[in-house]
């Protein structure tokens, strides 16, 4: 499986074009001032200078997808006899995602624990996940908002990826990490990369060096739960939050969704679309009761889920890959790192703890 190749920068597009013959290939490109993953188009520049504005989440978990197509039909003899036919709409075909960053791709492993669980496997997710190959680009230098190394990862962490690409002088070192990855590295455009492997290693080390010290978050699950009932803490943390959903939609590991129906005449679709826990509608019950009525309640769930509930259920793995998009793109600069650290450092006022016990 240890397969290392080298690709000249100049051949990147040709290679992707080759891959696009049998796969849907996604690559980051500039749209306006943003970088997003889009179907590879040889006419367009591939934008890999810095991490994409949006992670490639949609390649496996689309913003909105059909779950069921349904059709009503009538018995022509008796129009009152209406039958309904529901058909699952499963995704087909294979895909290759080029240019995701380690954090982006690691996000899917957060999905996997939930969506591919034994007792409730999501076959829509499964179909895409299993048929998508990730060529991940190792990070060279962190941004201010990057904190992958806080959450047991790093700029070259290849968890969830099939190929790790590292920028070296003149091109890329491509290391296969899975069978799926190996299968991709068969093109004649690729040279043997063994000789360039060291260069890649060095690049990895350099990237790691640029990182500043990471705090210890191992106590987070317990600590975050401890402040659960301290509404004041959450109200202050959420004060500036606008309750939009940008953080959740930009997050590589946020997997919540909504299901809604749309119909036209006798046909309709059941759609699954991204949803976000910061929206008041998310938990709003038809009666008007809302268990998470304020943005403080909702932020508590968001932080709680990532740093406490999820790790509690899934062997301590924090459901955050540290990409920092929620910080960078938050319209008001809400910093989830700060909230978690505050929760860890939170000391209940004297008397409060006792009151809790009673």
């Amino acid at each position: 499986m240890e397969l290392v190749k080298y690709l000249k920068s100049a051949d990147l597009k040709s290679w992707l074009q080759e891959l696009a013959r049998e796969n849907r290939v996604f690559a980051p490109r500039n749209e306006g001032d943003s970088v997003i993953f889009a179907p590879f188009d040889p006419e367009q520049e591939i934008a890999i200078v810095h991490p994409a504005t949006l992670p490639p989440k949609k390649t496996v978990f689309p913003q909105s997808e059909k779950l069921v197509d349904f059709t009503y039909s009538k018995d022509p003899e008796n129009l009152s006899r209406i039958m309904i036919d529901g058909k699952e709409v499963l995704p087909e075909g294979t895909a290759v995602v080029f240019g995701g960053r380690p954090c982006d791709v690691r996000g899917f492993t957060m999905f996997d624990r939930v969506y591919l669980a034994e007792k409730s496997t999501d076959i829509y997710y499964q179909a895409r996940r299993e048929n998508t190959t990730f060529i991940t680009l190792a990070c060279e230098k962190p941004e201010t908002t990057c904190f992958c190394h806080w959450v047991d990862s790093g700029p070259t962490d290849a968890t969830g990826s099939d190929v790790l690409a590292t920028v070296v002088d003149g091109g890329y070192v491509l290391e296969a990490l899975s069978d799926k990855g190996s299968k991709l590295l068969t093109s004649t455009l690729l040279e043997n990369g063994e000789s360039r492997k060291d260069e890649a290693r060095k690049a990895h080390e350099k990237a790691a060096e640029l990182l500043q010290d990471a705090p210890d978050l191992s106590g987070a699950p317990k600590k975050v739960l401890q402040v659960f009932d301290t509404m004041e803490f959450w109200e202050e943390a959420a004060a500036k939050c606008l309750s939009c959903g940008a953080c959740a939609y930009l997050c590589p590991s946020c997997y919540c969704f909504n299901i809604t129906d749309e119909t036209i005449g006798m046909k309709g679709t059941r759609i699954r679309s991204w949803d976000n826990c910061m929206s008041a509608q998310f938990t709003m019950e038809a009666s008007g009761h809302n268990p998470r009525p304020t943005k403080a309640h909702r932020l508590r769930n968001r932080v709680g889920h990532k740093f406490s509930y999820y790790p509690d259920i899934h062997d301590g793995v924090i459901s955050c890959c540290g990409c920092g998009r929620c910080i960078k793109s938050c319209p008001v600069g809400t910093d989830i790192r700060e909230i978690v650290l505050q929760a860890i450092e939170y000391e209940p006022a004297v008397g409060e703890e006792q009151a809790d016990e009673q």
Partner: protein
Amino acid sequence: MNNKNLYLPEMATINEVIEETANIMTFRVILNNPDAMENFSFEPGQVGQLSSFGTGEATFVINSPPTRKEYLQFSVMRAGEVTSKLHSLKPGDQVGVRAPLGNYFPYEDMKGKDILFIGGGIGMAPLRTLLLYMLDNRKDYGKITLLYGARSPVDMAFNYEVSSWLERDDLETHLTIDAEFEGWPHTVGLIPNVLLDIAPSPENCVAVTCGPPIMIKFTLQALEKLGFTDEQIVTTLEKRMKCGVGLCGRCNIGTSYVCMDGPVFTYAQLKELPNEL
């Protein structure tokens, strides 16, 4: 991993519609696939997603007992878009069913014990499943007491059955309404107060309760006052759900997903969870 589609409902036909109250209707549905109907099995307390295609899905407890299998019964209180649409359906109309989902009442553990049912309004629906199951297996259980309250007589669902329950001598039934109503022969008073009046003994007894949040809150207090321990109290929760299979992310209370780990919880379990009902 299994390859079952979590989101594809079984197509079903409404067989019977019962208007329970002004805003509660009961639907008896039969799965269109006879094999699926034949093999359908569930436990009392489990829920199902009932859908009207084009409008959406909502979660309801299957309130027919598992011992009676000719149909699946759901009682629906009109509140939002889906429930309004369901209320407009008639026998013969098509619906989708994703069931059973969630956990169920620990009826095995309750064997040999006295059972106290406390139901408020539409909260009677999940209790009905268990009650009928126990009545069908009457000898396995001790004394069964039912306290069922509604705002007024016209808000009382399952009226047609309540009269037969009143007649049974192996079931002690107490009915109550919130305020005086002409011709009402039963108790008047709020459920927690009536409960304190009846004062059932906690000795070897399990209390099963369901109802609106405010009623539950005071009923739990009353039960504590009567000496029930947290482990002796069982309740079933309701949350907004979409997927029903622990993925969509809205019905969790901390680490527990009401759709998967619930909806049935003992009071002791609930106390372990963060306070976010």
